[in-house]
């Protein structure tokens, strides 16, 4: 249990390291009742965005997916809770496989919720980089299902 509070604690050291890591001239962070302002001496260009990281980023473990997604791909997430099926029926081939190029509106999978089979369609076309969930596995809302590389 001792871990459940861990992610949140900010220390001035963390903020200073952030400033150093991104070679900032100045960094000012105000969060959780604390304000820290760092002014560094020989610093080059400032990379503001990374400084803007909100405390919530510390409490939620950024999934590997997010990292990959940064590398030019997007994740397709489960729009509902249920059981994930890659094909319309056990004997049928999967709707899509890794490497497939898909068109917007194409069916990617089925999520069964309350005995209803809900077809999940692609919101945009691209190439399936990765299928993140095994067939017949339960999925929760917002769970990443596919990694997609959008068409340029």
């Amino acid at each position, binding site marked *: *249990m001792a871990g*459940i*509070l861990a*992610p*949140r*604690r900010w220390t001035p050291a963390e903020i200073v390291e952030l400033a150093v890591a991104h070679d900032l001239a100045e960094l000012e962070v105000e*969060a*959780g*009742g*604390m304000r820290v302002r760092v002014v560094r001496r020989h610093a080059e260009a400032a990379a503001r965005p990374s400084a803007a990281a909100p*405390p*919530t980023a510390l*409490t*939620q473990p950024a999934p590997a997916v997010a990292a990959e997604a940064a590398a030019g791909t997007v994740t397709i997430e489960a729009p*509902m*809770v*249920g*059981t994930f099926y890659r094909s319309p029926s056990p004997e049928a081939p999967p709707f899509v496989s890794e490497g497939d190029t898909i068109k917007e509106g194409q069916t990617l999978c089925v999520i*069964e*919720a*309350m005995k*209803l089979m809900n077809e999940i369609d692609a919101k945009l076309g691209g190439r399936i980089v990765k299928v993140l969930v095994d067939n017949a596995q*339960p999925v*929760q*809302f*917002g*769970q990443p299902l596919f990694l997609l590389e959008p068409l340029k």
Partner: protein
Amino acid sequence: MFHKILIANRGEIALRILRSCREMGIRTVVAHSQADTGSLPVRLADESICIGPAEARASYLNIPSIISAASITDSEAIHPGYGLLSENAAFAEICRACGITFIGPSPEAIRLMGDKAQAREMAKQAGAPVVPGSTGPLEGVDEAQALADKMGYPVVVKAASGGGGRGMRVVRSREMLARAFATCQSEAAQAFGSSELYLEKFVEETRHVEVQVLGDRNGIRVHLGERDCSVQRRYQKLLEESPASAISEATREGLCKAALAVANAVNYVSAGTVEFLVERSGEFYFIEMNTRIQVEHPVTEMVTGIDLVREQVRIAAGEPLGYKQSAIRVSGHALECRINAEDPEHFVPSPGTVTAWLPPGGHGVRVDSHMMPGASVPPYYDSLIAKIIVHGRDRAEAIARMQRALGETVVEGVRTTIPFHQKLLADPVFVSGEYALPRLEVGL
């Protein structure tokens, strides 16, 4: 007994339910919205599952999502807590249809008590006094006017399926009736999907006293004494206590007897609360029955020693109560303060991140809260962040203890109603425990 229960709620009550389950050796699944992913109940649960985005409509009120969450996690039962889906008869029916135990009364009881006019009739037949008023839904404003003229003003117009003061207007003269009627109709339509209204005599000065009842599947029913919840602001309770200090022993007995009569009339199963208005004279009237666990249930637990959530779970699993009325003893006095993340003057919600949290402790103090350093208080849900409950040998000791507890409580990052509670507890009228209520409360 169940092996796994899905908790379809959030905040302190999700944690409250989780605690009883853990003590009973039952695994818990906390179904949560994306806004509550980092919350304490989710962190403490054996399993958790995200059922939708922050907005309650798409998550905590999303029946298909919750039912499939229960089925993919192999949960045998769902505890709805309070609010949200706890008094939704359709949800209880769907649970039943899907072979999942709804921890609460039958859909029929929920539906019946959810219809104010029907409930009123039922209570009347059961012998519980009700406020004079229309026997059923009003045909139209003319019927309302005729009835009001006959009973005399002031009267109150209420939505049949209303609650929490919405779809409700006090009318003091014939002229005002027509407009009030129209307003309530539209409010009721959009708030509850039904524009049925009824009319009642308005009782000017009242105490709000409710009786806790428990019933098992074998028809054994007991009451666990009463709670005084008169300190309210816009129909929102702010402080509750048990026993009620402002009523006579005779009134107390009358209330408990009437409450059991109502519960028996609907073959009530699980925990429920029968609410009454009590006049200075001791006259009392049935208002409604809440077919769920209530926010203020801990004051009853403090004076009876009975874990109400545990009883709900046991009853839902088909276990007999195992004790009779005579076995229930109320000892000492308990108070509960609802600490909301609101500014203490105007009660404007104050969502944000709790940067520091230190709950009170020591003899006779209980805290039910999902707060922790770093906890977020999202703007999407009610602003209750903690319930501070105290027990004392008498009311004076309980009040002193509550003042001590509030004084050592630390909450930083959001504003809270603690200063209001401190003012209330210091008010001589409140301290006297007489029938009259502190001006403070009226002044809100």
